[in-house]
């Protein structure tokens, strides 16, 4: 019994230590001197790998989710004679929740895991140590561009997801199922508020992007430099970031849309 408690305590302390290391890493990476010469180029490169490469999966998922949402929403609403409310249903669901969250989960799986693997491999092949020996701070050159790229790319991806999803919803709802286009759009416009819904969605995805890249970068940086170590770290990135996104989503939703 004592043994169990001891182990529990030890693992608790270990978790705190990991969290501490991750925080220090983030802080040092974000606050090191700005790199005006190489920074923009490195950032652009990371945005490409993290954002542009994720576009395909975001667009395809967005399209299908929009279409399914529209179809499911219609079958329920039409029973109450409220099919005209389809636009409101779809747009609010997407802008407030599905867009930021689903895009974030996809991002964690694709870009997050790739980031962890890449940084882990750089550590295992001593590239980070080599960088230090030459006199370049790996936090500045490798870590920070990735953190910034995640914060910038995630909102963009989420909004593209939203746009594509709403178009999918329009295709299914208006063109296939016959909901009146006029009421679809006007009801939607009446209900959706730019500040409340669109901007809050952007803020959510910004936070998600920051957290996902934070976890991904830390897991890679602290990896055990073997192939099993890298595989384990990659898995942890996906699992932890997904859980973090869902938990933060609840928190942010409560703060932003909560009943006062």
């Amino acid at each position, binding site marked *: 019994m004592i043994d169990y408690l001891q182990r529990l305590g030890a693992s608790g302390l270990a978790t705190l230590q990991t969290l501490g290391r991750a925080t220090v890493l983030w802080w040092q990476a974000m606050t090191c001197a700005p790199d005006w010469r190489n920074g923009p180029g490195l950032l652009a490169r990371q*945005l*490409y790998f993290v954002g542009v490469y994720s576009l395909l999966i975001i667009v395809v998922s967005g399209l299908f989710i929009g279409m399914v949402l529209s179809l499911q929403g219609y079958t329920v609403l039409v029973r109450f004679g*409220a099919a005209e409310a389809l636009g409101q249903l779809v747009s609010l669901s997407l802008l407030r929740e599905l867009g930021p969250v689903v895009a974030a989960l996809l991002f964690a799986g694709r870009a997050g895991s790739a980031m962890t693997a890449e940084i882990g491999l750089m550590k295992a092949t001593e590239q980070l140590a080599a960088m230090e020996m030459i006199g370049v701070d790996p936090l500045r050159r490798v870590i920070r561009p990735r953190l910034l790229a995640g914060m910038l790319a995630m909102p963009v991806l989420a909004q593209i997801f939203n746009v594509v999803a*709403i178009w999918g919803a329009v295709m299914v709802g208006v063109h296939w199922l016959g909901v009146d286009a006029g009421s679809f759009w006007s009801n939607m*416009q009446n209900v959706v508020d730019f500040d409340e819904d*669109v901007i809050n969605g952007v803020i959510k995805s910004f936070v998600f992007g920051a957290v996902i890249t934070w976890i991904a970068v830390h897991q890679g940086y602290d990896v055990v430099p073997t192939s099993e170590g890298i595989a384990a770290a990659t898995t942890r990135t996906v699992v932890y970031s997904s859980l973090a996104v869902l938990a933060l989503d609840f928190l942010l939703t409560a703060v932003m849309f909560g009943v006062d």
Partner: protein
Amino acid sequence: MQTRNIEIIVGAFMLAGILSVAWLGIQVSGLTMQESTGSYKLTAYFNNIGGLTERGKVTIAGVLVGRVASIDLDPISVRARVELHIDNSVDYITEDSIASIKTAGVLGEKYVSIAIGGAEDVLGNGDVIHDTQSAFVLEDLIGTVLSTLFNEKAEE
């Protein structure tokens, strides 16, 4: 991988993001340019606001002219004090206009409807609408109906 190509593509990516937000703003949330004409404040007191919320619509003849800015309880008259922001272009709300709380649509959303009166003077910023009609409360109606029926029965 050419640096220049990467930068161009990344630029396009960010532009796509900005355009998405713009499209969502205009097409989906109905953001329009006109909203920047500014508004002036009118206050109305109600006995019962019955579920009217902030950001609710204010209409004249069914047309949107403003929004409910705030709702709170006036401790002196013990009535609900509702602050309305009316668009500046609607400057013909007369002193004897009536503000009523009505129900819209299937979902029972509450909104404020203003019926213009015939008086000379027009309300300006900070003025109060004196004639108000509170929200329709189902329980009161049932209570009235029941007591009316009861009275009729008693008279027979």
